[in-house]
Each structure stands twice: as structure tokens, then as C-alpha cells.
């Protein structure tokens, strides 16, 4: 099967600044991948390119062999790093919004998760706490039967107990031919659920290896290695 995500010599410039330069990546299906790097290393730029919100300056990006567009959006489920929904909508309105938008949205899955986290469906998004609003957005994103989930900082604002639930949610909901790309700074929290990590540094890949390869080779966790590589 072809990789779910392929980048070839992918480059993104903002004026004279190279946000990404000459990135080559091929991501297999059935994996959970951590996209790690300090602030300004290009993580969100890559994620925006995957979702067609930016266009490459040079090189190619392919989702399941297609350039980002209407067809790729059908199979990519994207959680941006900030609220992207109309915050005066009620949770239940957001649900029907997603049902209308995506034919692969599972109301059953979403309901189960909303119940488990005891989220009031009548509540308007802006009346919820930051953490709860984030949970709602993640539930919407993970309730789609997508082939690539792209999660930009999914656990930043939620409490540790909810983090465990969210990781469970990710583990339960991705299928064998789907992959999950997670960008986060909370490496230690998610390290055990990752197959592989990609370190971005100044718009370039400085490491692309499995978690257990890193532990075998360096005798330390990904979190520790990250702190050493990117020491300020």
C-alpha cells in the first residue's frame, strides 16, 4: 500500500525565511507518529501544508498519492491548534454540523465519548472551560473514520486525567490502515503510545526513528533526548 503521507523535497518559504526546507518523509499506515520540535521549528507549517491551508514553495506533498484538496480532506481529520469552530454553537449543533460535512463521521462514537467525559450537549462552546472545549474538538475529530488524523497540540490544555482518556481515545479510534500524526510538547506523556517520532529543527528533519530504536541506541527516553538535542 502506498504511504498515507509523502513529502518530497518539500519547502515552504515566508519571504526569505525557510519555514521548511527540503523535507523528505514517507509515513506508513497503522502508525502513531509524534511530530516534535521546539517553537518555530516548522511543525504547524507542515501540518498546514498537509491540510491544504498553505501551498508548498517547492517540492511535493501527497496524501494517499493525491495533492491536498477536496479529495484529501475527505480522508484527513484535522485538529488545529486553536479554536476553529463558531463558539456560539451548542455542542449538539456542532455534532449535526459534522454529520452534514463529513460522510465518515460516526455520531455513535462521538456520543459515547461525550457521555464518558460528561459533556453537556446543550452547552454553547464559549461557555465551556478551555479544557472542555478542547475535548469537544478532539471528540469531533476522532469520531471520523479518517485515514490520517492530524492533531496539533491535542492535550495541551486538558488535565492529566483527561489526557489519559484522550490517549485512550486515540488508541481506540484509529484503525489498522489509518495513521495519526500528533504534534506536541508533552513528549513524556505520549511517548508510550507512539510508534515513531520525527524531530524538526529549523525546518529540517534532524531525526526520524521509532521510539524503541531511540531507547535502544541512546539508552534514554525520547523526552530526555529531546531536552538534550534542543537544550537552550
Amino acid at each position, binding site marked *: 500500500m502506498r504511504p498515507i503521507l509523502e513529502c518530497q523535497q518539500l519547502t515552504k518559504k515566508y519571504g526569505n525565511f525557510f519555514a521548511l526546507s527540503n523535507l523528505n518523509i514517507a509515513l506508513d499506515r*497503522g*502508525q*502513531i507518529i509524534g511530530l516534535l520540535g521546539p517553537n518555530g521549528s516548522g511543525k504547524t507549517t507542515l501540518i498546514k501544508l498537509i491540510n491544504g491551508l498553505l501551498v508548498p514553495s517547492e517540492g511535493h506533498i501527497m496524501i494517499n498519492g493525491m495533492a491536498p484538496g477536496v479529495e484529501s480532506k475527505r480522508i484527513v481529520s484535522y485538529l488545529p491548534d486553536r479554536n476553529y469552530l463558531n463558539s456560539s454553537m451548542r455542542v449538539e449543533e456542532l455534532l449535526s454540523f459534522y454529520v452534514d460535512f463529513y460522510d465518515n463521521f460516526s455520531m455513535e462514537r462521538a456520543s459515547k465519548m461525550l457521555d464518558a467525559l460528561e459533556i453537556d450537549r446543550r452547552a454553547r462552546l464559549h461557555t465551556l472551560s478551555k479544557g472542555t472545549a478542547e475535548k469537544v474538538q478532539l471528540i469531533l475529530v476522532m469520531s471520523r473514520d479518517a485515514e490520517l488524523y492530524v492533531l496539533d497540540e491535542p492535550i495541551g490544555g486538558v488535565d492529566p486525567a483527561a489526557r*489519559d482518556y484522550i*490517549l*485512550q481515545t486515540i*488508541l*481506540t479510534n484509529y484503525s489498522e490502515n489509518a495513521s495519526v500524526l500528533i504534534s506536541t510538547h508533552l513528549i*513524556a506523556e505520549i*511517548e*508510550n*503510545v*507512539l*510508534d515513531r517520532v520525527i524531530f524538526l529543527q529549523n525546518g529540517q528533519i534532524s531525526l526520524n526513528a521509532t*521510539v*524503541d530504536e531511540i*531507547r*535502544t541506541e541512546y*539508552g*534514554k*527516553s525520547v*523526552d*530526555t533526548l529531546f531536552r538534550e538535542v534542543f537544550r537552550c
Partner: protein
Amino acid sequence: MPWNLDDDRPIYLQLMERIQHDIISGVYKPGDKIPSVRDLALDAAVNPNTMQKALSELERAGLVYSQRTSGRFITEDEKMIKKMKMELASEHIRHFFDQMHHLGFSDGETLEMIQETIRGNNNATNT
């Protein structure tokens, strides 16, 4: 409850050790069916592919076997489990003696202290 894992050693090795330990200590009995990869991964809060690797390695070592349609089972070879139990026990003992050496005790002194401790425990339970 996520399994307790060290953060400086490969995860699949630690998953193997944990399952091995569960076999030796009787959490799993010979011939028992083990949960699916997915369920075990969720229980441990680890990546399913990593759990899969741990189980494949255990299979290679002969501790578990899979039946095409019905899943994975613990070996019925009780001799093998016994042998593993003894190996693990000697490993613990060696480790303990190493630590005592670090503290400056000879093997003889250590042995004496062990006996004293046992006697102390017995006295405590007798009174």
C-alpha cells in the same frame, strides 16, 4: 491502569518482561488465552504495534503460541515456565549480592545477615 514502565529502556522489552512475570507468578496459567493485542495495548496504555512486537518475541521464545483463528495462548510447557522462574530468581539473587557488595559486605556476611533476618522474622511471628 497503565503499566509501570521505565523511560530509558525499549518499551517492547518491558512489555515482554511484564507478561513473562505474569506467567511465572500465575496471573496467566498454562494454556490460558491471552487478551487481544489491542486490549492489552489499551490496558498498558502503549502503542498496539509495540505490544504486537512484544507478543511476537514471546512467541519466538516459545512462551506463547498462536492459533490461527482463535488467538494467542500461554505455553502448556510447565517445565519451561519453571526454568524461567528459576532463571529470574537467580537474577534477583545476583542483583541483591551485587548491591550488598557495593555496600561493602562479603558474601559470607550477607548470608549471615539473611539468616539473622529469617530468624528475626520467625521470632516475630512466634511471639
